[in-house]
């Protein structure tokens, strides 16, 4: 299901580069929610990067910022740069940004019902984007739309194209969303929890389809998910977010076999999986702190089982511990926590 990690090393050409991104939301005059607080990452051409975290960790805000879909106000992009193919997106005028959205960056959302317009036919919605971005005539756009529906595996596409979203099942709608997202051959596909609302058997079909499309169109994927199983099966590289920051970044295999941040370790331990035979699941105590009252030191310190005094005073930096593996933690685990005994 996934391309091997060796392959990733080949395409080192950077497609998207995000530097020191800070996105804050004003809650009221006094409170500011630091939803994304200093995020750096890059995505290479042809690569699938997974962004993992709990709700409130800032993963969706990060992806919406890349699309420049943050509502302002109350949101504001305080600092940072987002470069797509060396083009700075944050300073682009809205008109040109509209050309980027849907054309260079495609997006798939979690809720296929709410992201399709219920009063337009499926065809209308695909054709709209083809006419707008590629300047096709309605007739040839329709032809291509049928073609796209075939590619994403919708049987009798000639009929479906004139149907409305409510006539389709969740899986079918998500296929239509993928068809729309891919209609203009985007360089980057952002998928925000694309399979969370779907059943497992449909989920595996959709994930396979996404990866196949990625290879066919040679695009890159930013996959936002909370499901570690999905990450393991689809991603090349993983970014773990907590409290608006990236706390760990590594190649997928490295992350699962040698997690270094206590949060990543806890996340991997708590997920119920089929091979476990324990009665009580390990769990992380407490909740994610709300974005307007992050603690001064490490944001995970209150829930961390290894927290030291220093963690509460000094915020750790994201540091390289080996090639391509970065961790934001004062404790150097190096061997997956063995040093401190799990």
């Amino acid at each position, binding site marked *: 299901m996934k391309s091997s990690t060796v392959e990733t090393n080949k395409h080192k050409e950077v497609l998207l580069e995000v530097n020191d991104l800070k996105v804050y939301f004003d809650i009221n005059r006094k409170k500011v929610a630091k939803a994304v607080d200093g995020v750096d990452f890059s995505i290479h051409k042809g690569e699938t990067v997974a962004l993992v975290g*709990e709700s409130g960790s800032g993963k969706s805000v990060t992806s919406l910022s890349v699309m420049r879909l943050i509502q302002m106000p109350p949101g504001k992009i305080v600092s940072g740069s987002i470069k797509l193919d060396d083009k700075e997106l944050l300073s682009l005028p809205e008109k040109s940004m509209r050309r980027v959205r849907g054309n260079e960056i495609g997006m798939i959302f979690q809720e296929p019902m709410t992201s399709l317009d219920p009063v337009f036919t499926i065809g209308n919605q695909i054709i709209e984007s083809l006419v707008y971005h590629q300047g096709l005539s309605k007739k040839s756009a329709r032809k291509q739309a049928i073609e796209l529906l075939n590619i994403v595996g919708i049987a009798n596409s000639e009929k479906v194209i004139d149907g409305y979203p409510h006539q389709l099942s969740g899986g079918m709608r998500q296929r239509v969303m993928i068809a729309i997202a891919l209609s203009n051959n985007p360089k980057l596909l952002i998928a925000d929890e694309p399979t969370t609302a779907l*059943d497992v058997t449909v989920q595996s079909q959709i994930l396979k389809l996404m990866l196949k499309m990625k290879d066919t169109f040679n695009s890159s994927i930013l996959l936002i998910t909370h499901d570690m199983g999905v990450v393991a099966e689809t991603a090349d590289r993983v970014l773990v977010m907590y409290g608006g920051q990236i706390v760990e970044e590594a190649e997928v295999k490295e992350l699962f076999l040698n997690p270094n941040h206590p949060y990543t370790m806890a996340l991997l331990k708590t997920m*119920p999986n089929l091979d476990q035979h324990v009665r009580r699941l390990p*769990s992380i105590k407490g909740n994610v702190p709300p974005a307007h009252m992050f603690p001064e030191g490490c944001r995970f310190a209150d829930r961390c089982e290894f927290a030291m005094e220093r963690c509460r005073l000094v915020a750790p930096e994201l540091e390289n511990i080996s090639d391509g593996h970065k961790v934001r933690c004062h404790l150097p685990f190096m061997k997956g926590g063995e040093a401190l005994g799990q």
Partner: protein
Amino acid sequence: MANKEVLLKVSHLKTYFPVKANFKLGKRAVLKAVDDISLSLYKGETLGIVGESGSGKSTLGRTILKLEEPTDGEIIFEGQHIEKLKSKALQIYRNQMQMIFQDPFGSLNPRMKIEKIIEEPIKMHTTLTKSERKERVLELIEKVGLSEEALKKLPHEFSGGQRQRIGIARALAINPKFIIADEPVSALDVSIQSQVLNLMMDLQDEFGLTYLFISHDLSVIKHISDRVAVMYLGRIVEIASKDSLYANPLHPYTKALLSAIPVVNFDQKREEIPITGELPSPVNPPVGCAFHQRCPFAMEKCKQERPQLKEINEQQQVACFLYDDKEEIEKNLGSSMVQV
């Protein structure tokens, strides 16, 4: 399992919903949400019900609680038929069965303080005095791991996991014997999921509760259940003890479900049972085995006859013609079919 006491027995339960007249389907179209289901629940156990959306698992739960009117069949709770009971007589049984819902945001009244939310069922069903009720509420909120201060707050002040704890406290308020939990952890983050699952198991041990645990998530089901029933299109296709179901799934649908779960495994590629398409409509279900259109092993017989649940071994019952005679079972197990 055989000498265990049966708490709830359901036999040939059917719940049909009328569908609006539609010229394509004929005038009297019905949606067969629960279509001839029989099962028993033993005291103190957790039976997991797993299935995809539209398989009828929630309707099954709601019908057992009589939140939906059964079309046909029997529901026997502690030896008493309750399928025909109406309002007053039913109240007595409602005391003993409670429900935990999926959406901790929608199932708590946003204008009520937590105190009131938990107190309400006690007020409804018992004769406790005001101060006794207060004491009980306090005891409950501590049982589910929240503090006294929580009682004075409103639902929106809590996170999803905390709200689910409140929902559990409310369900426990009148000492029920039997709890139906409908996707109780699906809306929660993984790290919070395990907290709530652990809490549910602790409470089960403490109060000897019996759970019917409905979920689409096979890993969660595996964790909490003693036995598991797999539903497909309103029917149970396989019911087995947890260990045998996960180690040796028999029904092709169970196998497909298990093989579709994304897992963390870098060493070996799993073989997947490819199933295509999606759940057919329960308004117009296929004749014969409900799964035959998507089943990679479908035979001629599957298209005509509906397979019944059959005991394969002590632990396992399956509704599939592939297991009709011994020869076929052996061929089947020995062949390339996947051991998940």
